[in-house]
C-alpha cells in the first residue's frame, strides 16, 4: 500500500521556497567547525533474480545513495539499497576517493544495513555521527544531502507524528517518524540521514513529493539494530505471532467476560509455532498489559516519550529475541499472567515467505513444466499493484496462508508456467496451478517434488496432480529426460533445477 503512496525519492523535484536563515537546532553547525562531514556516497550495482525465469538474474541496476558514517568504521544505509547487490562502493564526498565495501549486517524487515569499507583507513578522518534517540513530535530534523561539489545540503522539517507503520517488507509494523519536509532532488538521495543537533535521528524510509511527507526509520529502531549487530549472531526483531482486535465494543467486552471499562485487546488469532502460542495465549483472551504497560481498548500504551502508541512498539523497538515479556491477560474474566519468550520469525518459517533477497529462488524444470515455490517475492513480480494484478488464486493462498496451512512447515509448490516442448504438447497454456501430488506422493516442497519424480511410475510415466483443473498432468519420463538438453538450449536454461 505504502509503495503506491510514496514514490522513490529519486523522482522528487521540488523548489525550495522558504529560506533556512532562521537558526534551528536541526540545522548543522557550519562546515568549518566540523572537520569532515559524516556522510559518504554509496554506489551500488546489483541484480535481482528473475522469478519468471528463475534460472537467471535480471539486467543490472545501479543506485547512488548516501550513507551515514557511524563509529567503528561502519556506514549505515537502508537494506533496500543493498538488497541483491553485486558490488558496493563507498565514495568520499569531498575528494571523490573510492573504496569497495561489503555488507556487514542486513535486516530486510527493519530496512537497515551496515557497510564496512575494504580499506579500513578509508573513514579515518571522519568524526562519526552519534545517535540521538529522543526525537519527539514537534522537533525539527534536517535531511542531509550532498551537492555535486560535496558540500552539504540541509533541509529542515517538522516531526508531525510518531507512530507504528508497516515497512516496505510488510512484516509487522515498526516505529516511524513522519516529517513534513520539502526534500530537494539530488542525484544520490536514496538513503538520506535525518539529523538533530548534529546527531543521527533517523534514516529516510519513503517520501511522497506531493504531500511533502517523509517517513523515517527512527533512532530507536536503528539503535536496536546496531545493538544486535554487535553480537556475532544477528537474529532480527522479535515477532510475537498473534493478531488482535480493539475492545471498544461494549457487547464484545461483555461477551469476553470483561465487564469493566478497562483496556485491553481481543486476541483473534494465534499462529502456530510462534512465541504467543508457546506461551499459551488463546483466541478470545484479552491482553491487558504488556511488559507492565497497561494497554487501552485500541491497543495503545502510554510511552514516556511519545504518549499513546501501539503496544507492538514494546515488542520491537524495546525488546530483543530471547527476552521474556510478561503479558497480563484476562481469560473468561479471570486475570492471568503469561510469560512470552520472544523469537525472531525468519522468512523461511512462513509457508509463503514474505521476502527473499540475495538468495536465488528455487525451481524445478520437468519437460517444459516449470515448478516454483509460492512466495510473496514471486507475487511482487507483478509490480506495485501485485495484490490486484497477480493471479488471484495465488494472492489468496499467500494472504490466508496461516489459516489454510495451520500446520505450517511446508511450501506451496506451483506449476508456474509451461515452456512449449514436445513433452508438454497440449499443456502449454497451463499456469499458476498448485501441485498436490507427484507420482502419488504428497508434495510439500520442491525437494519433495524432485524426490518424487526420480522414480517414474509403472509404464515410465510421471504423474503430476494439481488442486485446480486439469487435476492431472502425465509425462513420459524417458521423453522428458531426452528432451532436456534441447529445452535448455532453446530457452537458455542454465540448469534444470535449483533446490538449495
Amino acid at each position, binding site marked *: 500500500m505504502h509503495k503506491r503512496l510514496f514514490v522513490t525519492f529519486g523522482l522528487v523535484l521540488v523548489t525550495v521556497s522558504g529560506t533556512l536563515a532562521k537558526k534551528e537546532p536541526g540545522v548543522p553547525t557550519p562546515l568549518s567547525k566540523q572537520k569532515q562531514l559524516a556522510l559518504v556516497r554509496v554506489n551500488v550495482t546489483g541484480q535481482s533474480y*528473475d522469478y*519468471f*525465469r528463475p534460472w537467471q538474474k535480471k539486467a543490472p541496476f545501479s543506485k547512488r545513495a548516501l550513507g551515514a558514517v557511524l563509529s567503528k568504521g561502519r556506514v549505515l544505509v537502508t537494506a533496500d539499497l543493498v538488497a541483491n547487490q553485486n558490488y558496493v562502493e563507498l565514495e568520499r564526498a569531498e575528494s571523490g576517493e573510492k573504496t569497495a565495501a561489503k555488507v556487514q549486517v542486513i535486516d530486510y524487515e527493519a530496512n537497515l544495513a551496515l557497510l564496512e569499507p575494504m580499506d579500513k583507513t578509508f573513514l579515518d578522518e571522519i568524526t562519526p555521527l552519534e545517535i540521538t534517540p529522543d526525537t519527539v513530535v514537534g522537533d525539527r530534523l534536517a535531511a542531509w544531502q550532498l551537492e555535486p561539489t560535496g558540500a552539504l545540503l540541509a533541509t529542515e522539517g517538522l516531526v508531525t507524528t510518531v507512530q507504528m507503520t508497516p515497512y516496505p517488507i510488510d512484516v509487522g509494523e515498526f516505529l516511524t517518524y513522519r516529517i513534513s519536509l520539502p526534500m530537494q532532488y539530488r542525484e544520490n538521495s536514496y538513503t538520506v540521514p535525518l539529523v538533530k543537533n548534529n546527531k543521527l535521528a533517523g534514516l529516510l524510509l519513503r517520501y511522497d513529493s506531493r504531500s511533502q511527507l517523509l517517513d523515517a526509520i527512527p533512532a530507536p529502531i536503528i539503535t536496536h539494530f546496531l545493538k544486535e549487530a554487535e553480537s556475532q549472531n544477528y537474529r532480527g526483531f522479535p515477532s510475537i505471532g498473534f*493478531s488482535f*482486535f*480493539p475492545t*471498544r*465494543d*461494549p*457487547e*464484545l467486552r*461483555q*461477551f469476553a467476560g470483561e465487564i469493566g471499562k478497562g483496556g485491553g485487546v*481481543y486476541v*483473534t*488469532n494465534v499462529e502456530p509455532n510462534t512465541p504467543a502460542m508457546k506461551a499459551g495465549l488463546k*483466541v*478470545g483472551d484479552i491482553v491487558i498489559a504488556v511488559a507492565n504497560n497497561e494497554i487501552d481498548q485500541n491497543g495503545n500504551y502510554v510511552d514516556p516519550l511519545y504518549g499513546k502508541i501501539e503496544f507492538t512498539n514494546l515488542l520491537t523497538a524495546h525488546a530483543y529475541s530471547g527476552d521474556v515479556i510478561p503479558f497480563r491477560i484476562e481469560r473468561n474474566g479471570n486475570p492471568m499472567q503469561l510469560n512470552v519468550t520472544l523469537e525472531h520469525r525468519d522468512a523461511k518459517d512462513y509457508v509463503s515467505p514474505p521476502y527473499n533477497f540475495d538468495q536465488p529462488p528455487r525451481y524445478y524444470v520437468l519437460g517444459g513444466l516449470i515448478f516454483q515455490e509460492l512466495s510473496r517475492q514471486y507475487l511482487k*513480480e*507483478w*509490480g*506495485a499493484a501485485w*495484490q*490486484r*494484478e*497477480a*493471479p*488471484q488464486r495465488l*494472492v*489468496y493462498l499467500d*494472504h*490466508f496462508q496461516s*489459516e489454510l496451512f495451520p500446520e505450517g512447515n511446508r511450501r506451496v509448490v506451483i506449476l508456474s*508456467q509451461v*515452456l*512449449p516442448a514436445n*513433452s*508438454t*504438447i*497440449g*499443456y*502449454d*497454456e*497451463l*499456469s499458476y496451478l498448485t501441485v498436490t501430488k507427484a507420482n502419488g506422493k504428497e508434495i510439500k516442497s520442491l525437494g519433495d517434488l524432485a524426490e518424487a519424480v526420480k522414480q517414474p511410475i509403472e*509404464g515410465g*510415466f510421471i*504423474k503430476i496432480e494439481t488442486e*485446480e*483443473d*486439469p*487435476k*492431472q*498432468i*502425465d*509425462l*513420459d519420463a524417458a*521423453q522428458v529426460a531426452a528432451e532436456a538438453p534441447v529445452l535448455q538450449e532453446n*530457452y537458455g536454461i542454465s540448469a534444470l533445477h535449483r533446490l538449495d
Partner: protein
Amino acid sequence: MKRSLSFVSAILLFGAISYGQQSNPATSPPAQPEAPVAVPSRSVSPAQAVVPVPVPIAPPKPNGPVQKSLVRITATSVEPDYKAPWNAGALQRGVGAGFVISGNRILTNAHVVANSRYLIVERESDPNKYPATVQFIANDCDLALITVSAPDFFKNMVPLQFGGIPALESTVSAYGYPIGGERMSVTAGIVSRIDFQLYTHSSIDQHLAVQISAQINPGNSGGPVMQNGKVMGVAFQGYSGDVAQGVAYMIPTPVINRFLKDVSNGHYDKYVDLALSYSKLQNPAQRKFLGLKDDDRGVLVNTVVEAGPSATVLRPGDVLLTIDGHSIASDGNVELEGERADFQEVVERKFKGDSVKLDIWRDKQPMTVKIEFLKTAWPYLIQGHSYDVRPRYVLYGGLLFQPLNLDLMEAYRPTDLRLRHFFEYFILEQLYLQHPDVIVLANILPDPINTYLAPYRGGIVDEINGKKIRTLDDLARTFAETPERFVIRMIGDGPPLVLDRNKVETARERIKTRYNVLKEQNLEEKPESKSPEQADNI
C-alpha cells in the same frame, strides 16, 4: 453451457500468457479479453439521441416484408438497488426492436424487456402506442417473447419465417432502431464467424453466436437479421467502438428454435448442462498413460459439480469418447451437421427431462453411461446477473445481510480477498455445499448500537449462537428467536460480532425511520404479483 464449467477452456484460450509477455507482467498482466457488451438501448435517453443527419429513408424495398413485421419496443424498467434493497430502484427507459413471428408473438432480446414494468410497442406507419406484456423471458440466452392484447394489432402484421445458419461471407441485413430513432434502420454486413460466445446479458452463459460485420448499435437489440427474406438471427451484442469495430453478434436460429421449443409447453425451463469441466487430451504421453488409442479422440473430465446431473455418473479422470453417438475429438469438438462444434453443443440442444448417452473410458475400460437432465437449477446463478427479481436481504440492528451474487459484487465492488475467493470459486471448490447462500454483512446503517461494528463489514456469516447459517432464511429464522444476545461468527479469524437483542429491539423503529427502510427483510426473489409463466422457473 455455463462459463464456469468451461473455465479451463476459457483459461486455455485467454488466461495463459505467452512466454514473451511473461517477462514483464507489470505492464501486460494476463488479460481477459474485453467481453462484448450487450447492446441495450437503455443508455439512450431522448436527450442523448442525436438528431440524425436528415437523409430520408428510402421507401421499403419490395423484397422483404420486414416493415410489416418489425416493432419498436419502449421499455420502462426498474433496476434494483442492491445498496438499498428495500427501495424500488432506479427507473430507466430504453428502446429496442422486436419482430412478429407466428402465433401473434413478438420475439425480442431478454435484455430489452428484463426488469420492465411497462412496455409499449409501436409499428411502422401506425401512430398508436400499444401496451405489451412479457410472455416468456430467457435471460440465459437473451431472448424473450412478448405479446400485445389489442385485438387488431397483429391483423396487418406479417410473421417472419426462420432460416438456418447463414454461410460465412454471405450478406445479411440488420433491422432496428439504432440510437433510439423512430424510423426503421437497415444496415448490411457479412457473416464473419460462427462460434461459441459469452452472452453478456447473464454474463455466465455461452452459446452459439454468429459474428457479423453489420453496424449494430443500441436500439438494434432484438431486431431481426435477415437473408433472402428469412430471419437468420436476432441482433444482440457487440463491442463498444473503442474495443473493436465491425464486430457485432446475433443469436442464431438453433438458439432461437431451442427457446421457442422450450416455451411451447407453457414455461421456460432453461438450458440443461453436464456441470463438469474438462481438459483436452492432446498430449501423447497422457493419452498413453490413460491407455487410450492414438486416435485423437476423447476429453478428460476434471471437476464434476456435485449439484449437477453428472455427479453420480461421472468422476474426475474419466475420458468422454462419444456423446449421443458423436465422436468427441481430443480438442473437445464433435461433428454436427457437417460443422465442427464444441461437444457441449449436443447438450445445448437438450431440454429438461431429456438425457444424453456417453461412451466413456474409466480405468482403461470402456463404459456407457446415461445422464438425465432432471433439473435446471444451478448454484452458478450467483455468478450471473439476475433480472426481474427483488434483492434478498435481512436488515437487523442496522446490519444489512445480503447473499453474495454478481449484482452484489458489482454494487459494492469489494476488494476483500475472501469475498472474491468465495465468488470466483463458488462452483470449482464446491463452496455451495456448505453455503447455499454466502451471506455477507454488506453494509451497516450507522446507529449507536452498531457504532463499533464497522470492522466487521464485508465478513461472511458462518454461525450464530453456535448454529451454522447456510441460507438467508436460516439467518432470518435465527434473528426471530429470542436469546439474550446473538454471537455471530464470521468465516476466518476475527472476533465474534455480538448483538444484545434487547438493544436491537429498541433500535429497530429508530433505524427504520432514520434510513427510511420500508421493509426489514425480503426473503423471496420473485414478487408474488407476477404470473407464474413470467417468473422464470428456478
